């Protein structure tokens, strides 16, 4: 199976309706009941059909986002980062407490069921779970069959701070992590910190082979800094080599060799 990864087109929001809200309420109740006791964390890589909806084969799904989940007792924090224009977008942070599920923002929390992300099909798929145990690779079927999503799950380190994880407000101030749209909780790389001054070098340097003269090349450093790899390219790269989490994908079926016309009387499968 070869799955090319491209940016997922914006998934159209479905119109809110009472029935949909009831469906969502059911999803959330089921999820809440499915959260296992104990402290645990896991991460999921989601592959969705490029055009949304359902496709007939897992081959037709594309990298669509990453989900981090932190659980303890009845509490849960879900961070959903969908792909937007080739990059991982701002996280949708959902936290549950005794009062239910909340969408958490920098200004506070709002009931999740009435928030805009609650109508996002991808978010709904994620919440459908399972919240408890799941295999490293699973296919989410569509309502009438086919493939709605491929999900790769890897267990994470459960050594998180529950006070921070289940806080119903994102930090209002912060550095690069918030500027790049990442919550301050989950591990992330901040690429915002860069030096303000130009690169300088030195024209003489001591080496194990003696002192050498050098003409520093600040332009080379700027050239390095100008190279960019998008998260989607990065996921494609890992998937090509079946590096984690894509090692959970089933092996590609061996291609059938082209069958040469058999000469009359030659036994199929015999070797010379």
């Amino acid at each position, binding site marked *: 199976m070869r799955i090319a990864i491209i940016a997922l087109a914006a998934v159209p929001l479905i119109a809110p309706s009472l029935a949909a809200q009831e469906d969502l309420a059911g999803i959330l109740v089921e999820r809440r009941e499915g959260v296992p006791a104990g402290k645990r964390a896991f991460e999921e890589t989601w592959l969705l059909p490029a055009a949304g909806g359902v496709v007939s084969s897992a081959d037709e799904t594309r990298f669509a986002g990453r989900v981090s989940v932190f659980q303890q007792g009845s509490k849960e924090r879900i961070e959903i980062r969908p792909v937007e224009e080739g990059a991982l977008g701002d996280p949708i942070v959902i936290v549950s407490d005794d009062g239910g599920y909340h969408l958490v923002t920098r200004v506070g929390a709002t009931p999740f069921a009435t928030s805009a992300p609650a109508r996002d099909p991808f978010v709904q798929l994620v919440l459908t779970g399972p919240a408890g145990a799941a295999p490293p690779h699973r296919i989410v079927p569509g309502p009438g069959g086919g493939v709605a999503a491929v999900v790769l799950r890897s267990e994470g380190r459960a050594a998180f701070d529950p006070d921070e994880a289940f806080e119903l407000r994102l930090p209002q101030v912060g550095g690069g992590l918030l500027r790049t749209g990442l919550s301050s909780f989950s591990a992330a790389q901040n690429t915002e910190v860069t030096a303000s001054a130009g690169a*300088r070098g030195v024209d003489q*340097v001591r080496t194990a082979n003696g002192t050498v003269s050098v003409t520093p090349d600040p332009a080379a450093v700027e*050239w390095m800094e100008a190279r960019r790899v998008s998260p989607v390219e990065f996921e494609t790269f890992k998937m090509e080599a079946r590096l984690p989490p894509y090692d959970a994908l089933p092996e590609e079926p061996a291609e059938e060799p082209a069958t040469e016309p058999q000469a009359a009387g030659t036994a199929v499968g015999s070797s010379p």
Partner: protein
Amino acid sequence: MNGRLVRRLASPALAALAALALTGTAAPARGQILDRILEKAEKVKETAEKVGTAVVPISTEQEIEIGRGIAATIAGHYGLVRDSLLTEYVTLVGLTVAVIDPRPDIAYRFAVLDSDEVNAFAAPGGYVFVTRGAIAIMEDESMLAGVLAHELSHVNRRDIIEEIQSKARTALGIEEAAERVDITGEEYLQKAIETGASALFMGLSREDELEADAYSVRTTAAAGYDATAIRRFVSRLDRAAEEEVSLLKKTHPDVDDRLAALDRALAAIPAAERGDVTAAARFQDRGMHR
């Protein structure tokens, strides 16, 4: 506080005093002498700790500024291969291992140096280089990942920055109170870059290098690559032309010592968790295509 630095300062003094204590004198006075020696040893340790706390602090922003200067020096010395496709490939391999244990405060950059010499370098702040010569003796992508992971250890542990800090008061001539020093100020920046670049080209400590090898084993395994990759690379150093590995061998522990330490690091990882991806075909296609 810089624990490793304190240990470096305190250990020789404590060892000398302990040796003195063991050689002792006449039996009746031995207890008192031992008490005094231990008291002095404690004072030496306290002094070392005070020196340690007085180490010039270097923030992430300052580290990046110094790292850019060192990177410009490395690139100036060897020349950079300005090949976008090759650099993208090396960057993707580097990021695959970098995300296993990332420092959230820096961006990692990767590039190829235009040299037949077999070597790799890491400047502070996330600037990682590998030479054409090093890539030429690799046989698959996991070996590239292993070498880059070794360099990432130096970045993440701030090995060069610690060298600069340990030499700040002598090499940089800093006499002010540590908290008042801006290492990237006009007065000190060039000296800091010079000290860091020299540390890089003269070689880091044996401890730092062996830890970087062990880090490479752990990180490549966690990334899914064959964890023996760095060992296979190191074992090839003896087969490379002497002039191509001259600097690398002078700045790193003996190959045999490295291989023995790598075997210990590998033994610490359960076989099922060692990773098995070598991506040899992709490496031949993308890493060695020019």
